[in-house]
C-alpha cells in the first residue's frame, strides 16, 4: 500500500505554488463509431515545480498527450482542474490566451507542426503577433531563434520548413514557443520523430533552457532513457492514471510498481546489457474499457503469480485504487495494492 501523505497545499502564495498543477483531472472523449467513451485521463493529480523538468512516461494510448493538451488548455477537462501558478484555469478565450502565453506546447512532429506555407520568421513571429507584442518583433524573433540554438538567426529567417532538417524544424518550433517568453514548456514526445543522432542535441536544449531561463518543462515520452537523460522527476502513466511518481533515481533505479519494473527490465534487456526482460502479457489497454479494481491487474505479473487465496486477499480486481497524490512521499509513490508485497 502506498503512503497517503497528502501534499495538498491550501491557498498557496503564488510564489510557492507549483508552476503547473492538475487536480483530480478526468478527460473523457465522446464515443466514436462502434466504441464507448474513452476515459483518456481518468483521475490524475500532478505538479510541475518551478524550474523542474518532469518526464511523463507511458505506453501508447495511455493518455499522455491528452494530459499534456489539458495542461495547455487545448482540451477542456471533463472534471477536475488545471492550475497555473496556483490559479485555476478558466476556459474563456481571454483566459486561455493569457494561459498560453505562460505555458507553451511543443508537439511531437516538428515537420507537421510548421505550416508549410510559412517561413521561419512567420512561424516564430506568429505567437507574438497573436498576443499583439508588435514592438521589437524582429529582435524578439532573433532572440528566440538564438536561444533555440539556430545561430545566426538571419540564416534561417526566410527558410521554409521543408528546407530544414528535422532537428532544425524542432528548434524552430521551440523558438516559436520561446518567443512568447513562457515560464513552462510542455513538450509532447519532442524527440520521438527525430533521428537518434539529433535527439541528444534537442534534449540538451531543454536542459540549457532551464539553466539559462529557468524554464520548467514537462516532457512527455514513451522512452525511459529520456527521463534518465534530462528529468528531475518521473511520472509513469498507465491507462489514464499516474501509477508511479518520484525522482528519477527513485523511480528508475528502485521502481515500486510492477509496470515500471517491467518497462525497465525490457529496456535494459534491449541495451543488451541487462538480464532477461520481463514481458507483460496481453495487448495494450483500451481506455474505452477500463478494468475494475486496479486497472493494471489483468497484465500484472504479481497478480498473475498469486494463487486464488492470494488474489482474494489482494483484491486487485475489486478494490479501486485511490488517485496517487501529486506530492509523492519521499522515496516515490506507487499506485499498487501489492507494491509493498513485492
Amino acid at each position: 500500500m502506498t503512503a497517503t501523505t497528502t501534499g495538498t497545499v491550501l491557498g498557496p502564495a503564488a510564489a510557492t505554488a507549483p508552476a503547473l498543477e492538475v487536480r483530480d483531472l478526468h478527460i473523457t472523449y465522446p464515443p466514436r463509431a462502434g466504441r464507448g467513451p474513452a476515459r483518456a485521463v481518468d483521475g490524475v493529480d500532478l505538479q510541475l515545480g518551478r524550474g523542474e523538468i518532469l518526464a511523463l512516461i507511458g505506453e501508447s494510448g495511455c493518455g499522455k498527450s491528452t494530459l499534456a493538451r489539458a495542461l495547455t488548455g487545448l482540451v477542456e477537462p471533463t472534471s477536475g482542474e488545471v492550475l497555473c501558478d496556483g490559479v485555476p484555469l478558466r476556459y474563456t478565450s481571454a483566459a486561455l490566451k493569457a494561459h498560453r502565453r505562460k505555458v507553451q506546447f511543443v508537439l511531437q512532429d516538428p515537420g507537421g507542426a510548421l505550416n508549410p506555407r510559412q517561413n521561419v520568421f512567420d512561424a516564430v513571429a506568429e505567437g507574438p503577433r497573436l498576443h499583439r507584442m508588435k514592438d521589437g518583433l524582429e529582435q524578439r524573433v532573433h532572440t528566440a531563434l538564438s536561444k533555440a540554438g539556430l545561430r545566426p538567426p538571419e540564416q534561417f529567417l526566410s527558410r521554409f520548413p521543408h528546407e530544414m532538417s528535422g532537428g532544425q524544424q524542432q528548434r524552430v518550433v521551440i523558438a516559436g514557443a520561446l518567443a512568447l517568453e513562457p515560464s513552462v514548456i510542455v513538450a509532447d514526445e519532442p524527440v520521438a520523430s527525430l533521428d537518434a543522432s539529433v535527439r541528444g542535441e534537442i534534449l540538451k536544449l531543454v536542459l540549457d533552457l532551464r539553466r539559462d531561463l529557468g524554464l520548467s518543462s514537462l516532457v512527455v515520452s514513451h522512452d525511459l532513457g529520456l527521463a534518465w537523460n534530462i528529468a528531475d522527476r518521473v511520472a509513469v502513466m498507465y491507462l489514464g492514471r499516474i501509477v508511479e511518481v518520484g525522482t528519477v533515481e527513485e523511480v528508475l533505479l528502485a521502481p515500486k510498481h510492477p509496470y515500471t519494473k517491467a518497462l525497465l527490465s525490457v529496456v535494459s534487456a534491449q541495451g543488451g546489457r541487462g538480464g532477461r526482460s520481463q514481458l507483460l502479457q496481453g495487448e495494450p489497454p483500451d481506455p474505452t474499457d477500463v478494468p475494475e479494481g486496479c486497472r493494471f491487474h489483468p497484465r500484472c505479473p504479481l497478480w498473475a503469480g498469486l494463487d486464488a487465496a492470494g488474489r482474494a486477499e489482494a483484491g486487485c480486481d475489486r478494490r479501486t485504487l485511490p488517485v496517487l497524490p501529486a506530492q509523492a512521499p519521499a522515496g516515490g509513490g506507487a499506485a499498487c495494492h501489492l507494491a509493498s508485497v513485492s
Partner: protein
Amino acid sequence: MADTIDVTGAVAAKAAGAPGAGRRRGSAFPRYLATKLVAAAISFLATLVIGFVLFSLMPADPVQSITRGRPTSDAQMAQLRRQLGLDQSVPERFFHFVTDTVTGHLGTSWEFQQPVSSLIGDRLWPTLLLMGTATVISVALGLWLGVRSGWRQGSWLDRIATGASLTLWSVPTFWLGMILLITFSVGIGPLPGFLPAGGMSDPAITGGLDHVLDVAEHLVLPCLTMVLVVFAQYVAVMRSSIIDELGSPYLLTARAKGLRDDDVRRRHAVPNALLPSVTMIFMHLGTVLGGAITVETVYSWPGLGQLSYQALKVPDLPLLQGTFIVFSASVILMNLVADVIYRFLDPRVRAQ
C-alpha cells in the same frame, strides 16, 4: 492508434449521419441499412421540396399554357384551374404534391394531356436499355483501361488511354452525337451511312430475333456516343485509384511473395482500388443520366431524356417536374445501392 486512423476515418466518412450509439456489436447491417434508407428518404423529400419550389411556385400561368392555341371557354379555363389545384393555398398544394408523388401520381402533362407517370412509364424501358448498355460497356472498358494505364503510368497504353479519355471528355456529348450521326448514318462523301439515323427500332421488322437485332442496331450509335463520353470518367477514376494504391506496402508484400506482376495487380491492387471506384461510378450515374437527355434528343431515342427535352421546349412543367423527380430518385437509389455494395466490398466498413 495510428494504424486505425485511416480506417476509422473512412468509416466515419461513410457512416456520417449515423450517430454512434454506445452499442458495440449486434445488428450492424440492418441498422446500417436503416440509416442509409432514412438518409435516402430525407434526400428524396428534399428533392421533392426543390421540385415543388421550382415548378409549382413559378409565375407562369399553367392554364394559359395549356389552352394556348386551343379554343377554350372561360368556364373551361376556370375548371382547369380547379383541376390543377391552383385555387389552393401553398401548404395545401405542397401536401397534395408530396402525397401524390409518393403514391406515384405525378400530375398531368399539359402538352400530352396524359398522366405524367404513364408517359414516364412508357419511356422508362428504352432509357434503361440505353443507359444500362452504355454504363456496362463504359464501366467495363473504363475500369479495364484505367487499371492498365494506372498500373503502368506513362506507358503507351496509358498515354493513349489518358489522351483519348481526356479528349473525349472535353467533347460536348450532343456534338459528338451529331458528328457520329453524320458519319455513320448520313454518310460522308463516297462512304454511305449504314446505321439507322434515329429511333429505337424499325417498325417494319417484327418478331423475335430480328427485332432484337434491329434494336441492337439502333442502339449502336447512341450507345457508342454515351460510352465514348462517359468511359473517360471511369478511366480517370480507376486510374487514379490504382495510382493511389501503387505505393501501398501490401503490394510490395505481394511482390515479395513471388507473385507475378499480373497477379499482384489482379489479386491485390484491383480489389482495393475498386473500393473508391465503386462509389465514384455510382455517383457518376447522375452525369450519365444527364447525358441521356442530349443523346436521346440527337438520336430520337424514345426515352426519358427525350421526354424531358420535349417537356423543356414547352415547357411542360408537370412533365419536367416528373422527369426531374424520376432522375433524382434514381440517382438517390443508385447512391443507396453504392453504399450497400461498398459495405460488402470493404471489410473495414462491413465490420462496422
